């Protein structure tokens, strides 16, 4: 099962056995066969990419290598030697380190405390702290991973937090480093920096396994790539001999359009406008600062930015969830929000503002409710589905069925709990609910987060259809690709402010990335920007 590429690139290593070999691994979670006879061979000193859609089994496979789960059957070989890994500490002692998608850091702790956690020498921590301080200095110089050892994690930007995770693994003597979706939270510049670090690691003889769904990264940084689909390994390729298109097709099992096809936007009159809007949260922090923007019919306005820079709050003030502290918001010529005046989400829905919430699980759906019940959330007071006293559940189910057919939700069972659908199908249920009410303004947050490639294509098409039907669409996404391919105009948010605006056709990833890092004028160069280093 080992791909031909594995040998091709391990030439430099000669007869050295692969750093990691998984042979015929199987793992079931109840009825789900999450990994089926998975085989992979990672030559030492290479960067090996693993791609696959959400739920393809990539993380499960790595969790078995890291000792988080026990395989039902199959073998793990490290440096040519059969090993039994039953816990993360086993994996660590075998030289496997992992950088998780959600950082495994203790936020109130300092960098040093996080680094020594679990590998302290002796009962007191002072000695370990001193030792780690020296080691971090050495590792920092060797790999270009400098970080203030006494900084508290919660005060560090995500890029540096990730660096701490890498240092943690190296401090534990990791020879093979697994990175799970490492760039999800990074600006493009931070991602580039990470790739340079990976290069350094490779040149020092370390092995890197990179799990991602971003094909661009695979092409940019890996030596070999393995593709997973529905729990099985479907292909191994040397990166130089494959293409994004081929990988996408292997991932999904059919041809996919990576680029959204859309015509020119024909913007009409403005539907909604924010005038000098500020918002201060319950903790007293100013989350939105003097926002001015307007959205017109027939256009998609994209909001780019690293998450946590005010995008969520922007959606919340527009949908009536949060009050504003300054300025005002006008919608179809009427003031819907001003200091001390807040329209509630229900009124706004009725007025024609639909909201596809960023966090589907927390705000968009109720996971224990059925698909039919989720279909009417927020619109459950509608006359069509209510009798004089009781709700007409037949009609609710009928509406759900209509949505399911139109949006190709699978399986089309209105009585199934929302948690029983895949991420993509959940999102389709939410999108159908909001779009089928025919709103004038559609607010969409992270429409394709946790959604597989096939469904992404569908959702993007739907958003373009909305636009072409003359609706105003506000799109918030941390996926720069998504913003660049869907939006007609792009605003970049940083620290609660709008830091720049570009027409989508003039936008470059470089310029947007610099603005996302807090640089007001990208042309001025990187050194003048705050935030990113």
């Amino acid at each position, binding site marked *: 099962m080992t791909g031909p590429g594995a040998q091709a690139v391990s030439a430099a290593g000669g007869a050295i056995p692969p750093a990691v070999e998984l042979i015929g691994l199987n793992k079931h979670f109840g009825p789900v066969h999450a990994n089926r006879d998975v085989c992979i061979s990672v030559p030492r000193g290479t960067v090996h990419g693993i791609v696959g859609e959400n739920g393809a089994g990539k993380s499960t496979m790595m969790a078995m290598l890291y000792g988080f789960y026990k395989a039902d059957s199959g073998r793990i070989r490290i440096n040519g030697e059969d090993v039994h890994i039953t816990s993360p500490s086993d994996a660590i002692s075998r030289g496997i380190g992992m950088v998780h998608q959600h950082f495994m850091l203790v936020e109130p*702790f300092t960098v040093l405390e996080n680094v020594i956690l679990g590998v302290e020498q002796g009962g007191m921590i002072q000695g370990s702290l001193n030792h780690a301080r020296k080691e971090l200095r050495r590792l920092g110089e060797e790999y270009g991973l400098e970080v203030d050892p006494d900084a508290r994690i919660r005060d560090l930007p995500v890029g540096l937090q990730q660096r701490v995770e890498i240092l943690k693994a190296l401090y534990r003597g990791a020879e093979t480093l697994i990175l799970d979706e490492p760039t999800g939270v990074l600006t493009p510049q931070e991602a580039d920096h990470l790739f340079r670090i990976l290069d350094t690691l490779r040149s020092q003889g370390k092995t890197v396994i990179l799990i991602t769904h971003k094909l661009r990264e695979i092409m940019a940084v890996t030596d070999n790539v393995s593709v997973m689909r529905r729990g099985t390994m479907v292909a191994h390729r040397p990166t130089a001999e494959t293409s994004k298109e081929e990988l996408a097709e292997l991932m999904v099992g059919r041809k996919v359009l990576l680029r959204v096809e859309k015509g020119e936007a024909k913007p009409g009159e403005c539907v909604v406008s924010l005038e000098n809007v500020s918002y201060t949260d319950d903790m007293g922090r100013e989350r939105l600062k003097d926002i001015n923007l307007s959205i017109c019919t027939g256009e998609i306005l994209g909001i780019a930015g690293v998450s946590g820079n005010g995008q969520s709050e922007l959606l919340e003030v527009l949908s009536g969830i949060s009050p504003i502290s300054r300025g005002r918001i006008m919608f179809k010529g009427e003031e819907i929000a001003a200091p001390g005046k807040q329209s509630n989400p229900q009124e706004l829905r009725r007025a024609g503002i639909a909201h596809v919430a960023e966090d589907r699980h927390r705000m968009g759906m109720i996971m224990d409710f059925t698909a039919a019940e989720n279909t009417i959330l927020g619109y459950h007071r509608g006359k069509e589905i209510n009798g004089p006293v009781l709700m007409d559940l037949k009609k609710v189910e009928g509406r759900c069925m209509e949505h399911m057919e139109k949006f190709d939700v699978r399986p089309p069972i209105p009585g199934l709990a929302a948690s029983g659908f895949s991420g993509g199908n959940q999102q389709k249920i939410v999108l159908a609910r909001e779009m089928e009410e025919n709103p004038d303004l559609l607010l969409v947050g992270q429409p394709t987060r946790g959604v597989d490639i096939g469904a992404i294509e569908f959702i993007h098409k739907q958003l373009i259809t909305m636009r072409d039907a003359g609706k105003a669409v506000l799109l918030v996404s941390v996926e720069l690709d998504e913003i660049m391919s869907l939006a007609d105009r792009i605003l970049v948010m940083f620290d609660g402010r709008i830091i720049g605006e570009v027409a989508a056709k003039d936008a470059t990833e470089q310029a947007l990335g610099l603005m996302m890092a807090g640089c007001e004028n990208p042309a001025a160069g990187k050194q003048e920007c705050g935030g990113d280093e």
Partner: protein
Amino acid sequence: MDFLITILQLIDGTIRVSTPLILAALAGLCSERGGVIDIGLEGKMLGAAFVAATVAYMTGSAWLGLLAAIAASVALSLIHGFASITHHGNQVVSGMAINIIVAGLAPTIGNAIFHINGDTPPLPHAARFTAIDLPFAASLADVPVIGPVYSGVISGHSFTTYLAFALVPFVAWMLYKTRFGLRLRAVGENPEAVDTAGVSVQWLRYRAVMIAGVLCGIAGTSLSTSLGASFIRDMTAGKGYLALAAMIFGKWRPKTTLLACLIFAFTDTLQARLQGVELPVVGEIPVQFIIMLPYALTVFLLAGFVGKVVAPAADGEPYIKEH
């Protein structure tokens, strides 16, 4: 001079009354720093008080009473741990269950043994933790300033009181200087980080609740064998909850928690002293209002005065591995 003596007596009383509060608050702190909410402090303390008094009465030894009380309290902790750590149960429900069970069980067993309404008989002097006179307390008593403070306030408390105060710096040292403390604090903030670092989340949390059990055991012992001279039903009277409030007011830190305990204990001492006393201007305050004082203060402090309180991030969250 009378006024000064009153003040010194108040401080002396505060130190004495604060003993179970400090111990219970430290118990809650250790447990919650490890991510397990411990609303069962009340029940554990009550159970320990009962067992301590019973065993001390039967054996004539306060020390055996203390050991038995610790064992009983740790056993209750382990029930809490089994429900909330092993089986991911709701920690508040499990803790409340302990409070309710003990409130009923202790007097029932007590009645079966002693037939005096669920209480235990009064303990003889030898079966109690009584006042310890520190060295030179008698000879320094007449020295001005030092005498009243050293001999009157600092000396003359029981073993459990001195232990409670000594445990405050000890717990602080354990939390901030030792490997166990580092891991304990980590598991209360982000158990996944601890798990991925190859350290057992469950075992850490079990140790946390067992420490809470030991401390509650001492707290209960101090109630029935030192502050009091027998077990009386419901003798904890909400001290477990007060300790929890003190811990929150102290922001889950040992030294500030001690301070909070002293404030609560002081109001408690004050209310005991104010009962039936004619105050200038207002006259005699009805006793109900005076008894209310510590509780009103709790509400007042927790509601407004504390400012932003940040609990350990994973406090109350059972740790369940995905899948």
